[in-house]
């Protein structure tokens, strides 16, 4: 009976617009022109995001993967409504994100964030109890009398020791600090959790503890999870979907297992190959480094490092397009094209 109640309370799987939808999102920053003279004010446009298409459904778990300079953090700021994109549309449940954010506290309550630098995101002069109570009060979640009980509940839910409420962040380990940040994010009872490298830089055992916590939270509370990571192992453990970014564009999306088992974009294949695997010889890595976004290669932005680049790759810039069930890839010559065609004709 309880189960059916929960199910009717929750919105059905698909009728509503997706939680987030990005349509041709562009983010251009104006930066000093390289090599300009000292007094010159010449600037050039730097496209940190370029033609980003992404849709995140209610209850989905999406890993956003890419190397430094791929535009993950810029995309995050657009999702959170901190920056308006310079082009394209960024929607939250069908409305422009900036508009949703400006109107009342609904957006801020519903979309919670766990920052990369968890320790830096917590006021060192506040106890853990106060830190967790802050969002409770700000969003008026519980009556004052129930505040302490709710704080204790949250502390317990994220696996902190019960006496943590009276401690300060400085007295906590790196793993515990991240748990506090998660508890704070959950305090406003959000339906969306956005986490930026929430488990990076931790010991493997601490990382394993946090990942099992995040997965159980996501499943038990039906959270929509957007998880930024550079670790494909983490992505494949935690998220059902994956979006791989390169130089400001999503180059491949789809179900995590399918994308990682049979990557269609040569960049996804290279990332996959570079991830450490027991006793596999370290494969020939990609040549060179990610180019400067001020000096994008002509045609496909990956063509300068792509082991499978052909002549037309240096002329045409591929957009993210459908590639088999639930998958999309931005490549003129996707790796599995022959297999994909074969399965389509069958």
């Amino acid at each position, binding site marked *: 009976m309880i189960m059916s109640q929960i199910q009717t309370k929750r919105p059905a799987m698909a009728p509503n617009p997706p939680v987030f939808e990005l349509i041709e999102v562009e983010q251009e920053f104006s930066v000093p022109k390289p090599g300009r003279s000292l007094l010159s004010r010449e600037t050039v446009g730097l496209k940190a995001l370029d033609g980003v298409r992404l849709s995140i459904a209610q209850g989905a778990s999406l890993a956003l993967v890419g*190397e430094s300079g791929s535009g993950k953090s810029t995309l995050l700021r657009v999702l959170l409504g901190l920056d308006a994109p310079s082009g394209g549309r960024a929607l939250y449940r069908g409305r422009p994100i900036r508009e949703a954010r400006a109107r009342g506290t609904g957006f801020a309550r519903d979309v919670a964030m766990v920052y990369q630098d968890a320790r830096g995101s917590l006021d060192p002069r506040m106890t853990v109890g106060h830190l967790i109570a802050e969002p409770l009060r700000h969003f008026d979640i519980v009556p004052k009398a129930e505040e302490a009980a709710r704080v204790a509940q949250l502390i317990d839910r994220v696996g902190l020791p019960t006496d943590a409420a009276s401690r300060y962040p400085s007295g906590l380990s790196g793993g515990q600090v991240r748990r506090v940040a998660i508890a704070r994010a959950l305090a406003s009872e959000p339906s969306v959790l956005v986490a930026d490298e929430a488990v990076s830089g931790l*010991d493997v*055992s*601490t990382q394993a503890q946090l*990942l099992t916590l995040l997965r159980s939270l996501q499943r038990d509370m039906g959270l929509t999870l957007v998880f930024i990571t550079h670790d494909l192992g983490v992505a494949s453990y935690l998220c059902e979907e994956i979006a791989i970014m390169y130089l400001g564009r999503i180059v491949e999306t789809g179900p995590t297992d399918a994308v990682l088992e049979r990557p269609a974009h040569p960049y996804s294949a290279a990332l996959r190959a570079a991830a450490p695997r027991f006793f596999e010889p370290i494969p020939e890595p990609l040549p060179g480094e990610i180019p400067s976004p001020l000096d994008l290669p002509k045609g496909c932005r990956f063509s300068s490092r792509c082991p499978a680049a052909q002549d037309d790759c240096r002329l045409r810039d591929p957009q993210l397009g459908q590639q088999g069930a639930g998958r999309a890839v931005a490549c003129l010559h996707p790796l599995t094209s022959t297999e994909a065609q074969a399965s389509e004709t069958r």
Partner: protein
Amino acid sequence: MKDMATQPILTLSDLSVHRGAAKILDRVTLSLAEGETLALVGESGAGKSTIATALMRLLDGAKVEGTAEMAGAGDLLALPERQMVKLRGRRLSMIFQDAGSALNPSYTVGRQLITVLRRNLGLSKAEARSRAIELFTSVGINDPEGRMTAYPHQLSGGMQQRVMVAIALACNPDLLLADEPTSALDVTIQAQIVRLILAQTRSRGASCIFVLHDLALASQSCDRIVVLYAGQVVEAGPSRDILERHRHPYTKQLKSCVLEIGTKDITAPEGTVPPHSEMPLGCRFATRCPRALPRCAGEAPPLQPARAGADGPLDHQFACWNPE
């Protein structure tokens, strides 16, 4: 099957490091054969970096006990500083974790490499310069002549790490210590740098100690693995023995936390490393060990061979009273 080829280049015996009341390394014993690559793995506080810094004699304000015999050089921990200065950079060199802060920000990278070459090898300015360009080329730096005049901040993290590898290898050292050389880098760059370090040390016949936290990467890059927990060696041996026939419960736990692509189940261990004030006197893992016996916390288990009859220092050894 011990012959001259497996003569150890380095033998560490009972290395302990005290900082105040805390014993941050506890009787670490290990040896490294000529031409071998060894991984020190473990989590924060395991003492991996402390071992490397102690060998370089760069530990400040700590009491160091034990011996570290390096072939042809003597005990690194007892040598007078004057002789140590001659060893550093020539026979023994180190790649630091964060190249961005290990390089001097106020000199060009070319000058930093040339200084090392001139001081250690006594080359002339012109010789050192052409050797520096050769080295930059060999570590995969594009436009090496142009990069000679670049300051560290003008280079990406991957390029800075390549510069550091070039400096560390400048004088063909016999032993290279690489302290998490790729932990700050993206995965594709990590693969480039690890391959580079391995290729460069192998072509020179040098031995290498990698400090790593990633067991999978250790298995890909090193002949042998030493697993450390809270300053103690808990298991050591050939990489395959450690990962597939491990005996120590901590090694098992560490391996079970590794996320490969496609891993859907991990068992997260309970708790954390105890603070030094609460460290058990015996096996330091006893407080978190699922197989702990009453004697474990009080009595430190010695390293013992994993197979009967195999007692060579390079064989598989573990320290546990109740092994897997």
